């Protein structure tokens, strides 16, 4: 295999990344519609709802956030929502860790934007491209930008038209995110041995999910997988 080229940035990569993100659209649309609908039902203003989607831009923590949303805030409740958000989003630390070699020579501002736009789905699309030898950082950014836009538009739509969306279960759309993740697992497959840590991750997440409420099972499983990867020669 020839050595991978050095990381670079091109604007044609932006378009390529936006196209590569397409299979993640249905999951983003369904989740953001659900979030917009729930936020409206909980009595959040449009500004608050769009503010969360535009700037927090992390679905699970937004959903948990509006569960503990307050009409009148105190320093204590703000600290609580920050802590809960940090716990739910801590798994992003791992995503960033894998991107560091790719972003090493990038200008600081563009890396900050790229990382602000990181989501699991976008990261998986970018990781697939990187695994196949691609090094254009523009692809990662294009993917992040288009997904952010989709997220924002779907949040807006859900806020006003959530009640009009037909029963998503009928079309299997409630499971669109897990199915997309499963699809992205295929190009990662390099044989049974490199997949052993995945098995550890899956088992640990099942156990944690059964014992602990909330989203903790994701990071627990992910960390177990990384640990297994480090231990297996």
């Amino acid at each position, binding site marked *: 295999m020839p050595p991978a080229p050095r990381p670079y940035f091109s604007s044609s990569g932006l378009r390529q990344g936006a196209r590569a993100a397409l299979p993640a659209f249905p999951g983003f649309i369904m989740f953001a519609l659900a979030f917009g609908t729930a936020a409206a039902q909980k009595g959040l203003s449009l500004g608050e709802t769009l503010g969360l989607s535009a700037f927090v831009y992390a679905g699970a923590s937004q959903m948990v956030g509006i569960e503990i949303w307050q009409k009148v805030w105190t320093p204590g409740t703000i600290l609580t929502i920050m802590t809960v958000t940090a716990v739910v989003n801590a798994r992003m630390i791992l995503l960033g860790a894998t991107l*560091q*070699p790719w972003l090493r020579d990038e200008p600081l501002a563009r890396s900050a934007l790229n990382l602000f736009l990181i989501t699991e789905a976008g990261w998986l699309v970018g990781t697939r491209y990187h695994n196949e030898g691609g090094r254009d950082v523009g692809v990662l950014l294009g993917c992040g930008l288009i997904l952010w836009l989709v997220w924002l538009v779907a949040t807006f739509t859900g806020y006003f038209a959530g009640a009009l969306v037909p029963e998503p279960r009928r*079309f*299997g759309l409630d499971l669109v995110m897990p199915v997309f993740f499963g699809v992205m*697992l295929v190009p990662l497959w390099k044989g049974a041995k*490199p997949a052993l840590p995945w098995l550890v991750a899956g088992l640990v997440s099942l156990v944690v999910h059964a014992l602990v409420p909330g989203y903790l099972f994701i990071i627990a499983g992910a960390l177990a997988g*990384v640990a297994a990867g*480090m231990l297996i020669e």
Partner: protein
Amino acid sequence: MTAAGTIIASPWGSVLAIAGMVLVTFLCRIAGVVVMSRVRITPRIERGLRALPGSIILATILPVVMDNGLPAIAALAAAIIAMAVTRIDVIGLLAGLGTLAVIRALG
């Protein structure tokens, strides 16, 4: 009430709550890159990080799929098989969702 407490209790409280969430989320997003740029990446660390994408996927979807039972397992299997055969992600996605929709329509 202190001046800060008054601001937090006003409608600005929501802005502060969102700002707080944005701050901690952004710190999570950049922390991995910041830490790894200061750590020498040994082969062991590299192996661990290479296991991460698949680990995150299984850790995320396995509990959800188990909670949804047989239809979800069948849908996931269909999606993976379609993707493995065609290598086209959109087709894998459609195969999975189609399988789920058909099973639910029949059930």
